[in-house]
């Protein structure tokens, strides 16, 4: 029986009259969980609350057995949670290597961080661009760099918000390999819109709708679920989800 690493109960965030998030969710250690849902379902807001960027109005988040509700971002990170934001947010003026070095230095110190950063460059395939400022990278490369920054500190839980947004098919495949590798050592939660990508990686999928958990199951179950089709394609649409 795997241990739950993240337990979210009654988590609520209200924006004026709009209830953006209201959900209960449990993630087991070692999982690779996909979080899908139409725009405005509250996925990114949920991530921001988890990673300490935003305080919830009610509910609790327990991570590795500790109540981290309302903690500052840096304390959550120190407990082993890292995040790749929705909008690529790398350190634009710093070189690719320096980006990874700053990310690794927190846990491994200057020298250890250098070694880890160099290893991570290999993994994300940006060794040749190590000395380029991050701002020169393409959109896809920035996404990889940020995934690298989120995983170089050997976190226990990684949140990835749309890691394949704007990527070509080949780039998506590379990202899938990257994710599988990351999942060997860490629990991963991925928010994505790209159904092909979800199909390639998914074991368990959670569908969010209007801030709540709408459905949960394997990709096959989710694809058969008529309610999910309705929220994605509008009520009355009975043709299959695009393959």
């Amino acid at each position, binding site marked *: 029986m795997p241990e739950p690493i993240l337990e979210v109960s009654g988590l609520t965030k209200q924006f004026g009259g709009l209830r953006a998030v209201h959900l209960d969710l449990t993630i087991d250690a070692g999982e690779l969980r996909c979080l899908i849902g139409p725009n405005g379902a509250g996925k990114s807001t949920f991530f921001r609350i988890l990673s300490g960027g935003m305080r919830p109005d009610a509910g609790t988040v327990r991570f590795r057995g500790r109540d981290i509700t309302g903690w*500052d971002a*840096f304390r959550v990170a120190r407990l082993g949670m890292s995040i790749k934001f929705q909008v690529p947010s790398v350190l634009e*003026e710093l070189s690719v290597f320096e980006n990874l070095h700053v990310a690794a230095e927190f*846990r491994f110190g200057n020298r250890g961080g250098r070694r880890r950063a160099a290893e991570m460059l290999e993994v994300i395939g940006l060794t040749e661009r190590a000395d380029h400022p991050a701002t020169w990278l393409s959109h896809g490369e920035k996404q990889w760099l940020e995934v690298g920054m989120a995983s170089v500190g050997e976190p226990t839980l990684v949140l990835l918000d749309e890691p394949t947004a704007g990527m070509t098919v080949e780039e998506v495949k590379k990202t899938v390999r990257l994710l599988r590798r990351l999942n060997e050592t860490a629990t991963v939660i991925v928010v994505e819109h790209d159904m092909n990508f979800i199909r390639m990686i998914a074991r368990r999928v959670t569908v969010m709708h209007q801030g709540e958990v709408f459905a949960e199951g394997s990709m096959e179950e989710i694809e058969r679920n008529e309610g999910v089709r309705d929220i994605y394609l509008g009520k009355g649409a009975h043709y299959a989800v695009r393959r």
Partner: protein
Amino acid sequence: MRRVSSAELLSALVLLLPLLAVPWAFKPYTANVLAVYMIYGLLAMSLGLIWGGAGIMSFGQTAFFGIGAYAYGAIGLNLINRTQQTHTALLGGLAAAALLAAIVGYFMFYGRISDVYASIITMALTLVLFAFAVSTGGDEWVIGVARLGGFNGMFGQGESSQNIANFQIPPVTLWLPGMTEPFAFKINRESAAGYYLVLGVSVAVYVLTRALVRSRLGRVAVAIRENEPRVASLGYDTRFYKFALFTIAGAIAGLAGMLFAAWGRFVNPDRFGLAFAASTVVYVQLGGRASLLGGFVGAAIIGHLTSYLAEVVPFATIPPDAGPWITFLMEAGRRIVREAPLLVQGAVLVGVVLVLKDGVTPPLFRVLARHRRWGWWLLLPAVLVYFGHRVACQQADLCVF
């Protein structure tokens, strides 16, 4: 990146060589003037450290400069006659500036005030101190023998029996164990020790600050400048890094302030004033905040330009055979410069910033890093020729500065 920064280091060395020879080749006046440029440069470097390093534009960096100067002055005036040295004054000035920066920094960064407000808060701080310092003209504003003096600035008043005797803030004076008598760092006809003190302190602080920028503190600060939420989500307590860098920058500004008080043996509320605060920002913007040398370069350019415009141009003679247009233009130029050197200074800043938005040093270092072969053979003679020209024209009494 690394090559650019090695270009910066070598440029610093190239500039240092002629600076070492200045008191030997020039009049004491020149050493005196250069010393104050370096003091302003040190202040500008401290602003560059926090502005370029962490993206926090401290408009009132002069507050720490002024506090350092006043604290050094007050302690120095009181102790110099008793102890014959200024060790306590130096420590006190540094501590006062660092403490003020730490208090202000603590409330700004742990209170999560955004960086834009940091500019406004530090500017308000320096203006509040200005208003306070101006209002200390009365007889009740006395610390021991040191009168704060309001607009007139700080001076010491004699003990009760010799009321007429006013005396000035002491120069930096050391009396270390093993020395038979105290040594005062003065700048005058006999001694260039004060000049070398300022030069030595500038070089030492530059080297230490450079090491700091390359340490974890500096690297994380730059990362915070780029994207603070990103850095926080890597586990760094960004508030602490900003607080620490701000406090160190405040201490460096205070050190510059102490050197200033010891250099001019005087300090008045103008050091807290808006004009001085703004010109510090101008130095950094003009010189370039991406490198620590930028502040020094900016201070030297503006200082040199201002003194040139104020002292040389107004006295330039119009040739008698010049045509009416030339005469008109020269006369107009003379008047503009005489009436408003600050106008010219502002125009230079706007002009430079329009062309080089990062200031003058970054493109220079980039060129030097890219063309290492001939870059040095160009820069070194250029510096030598410039100084040689200055020496020659001064020996012949052709130029004022």
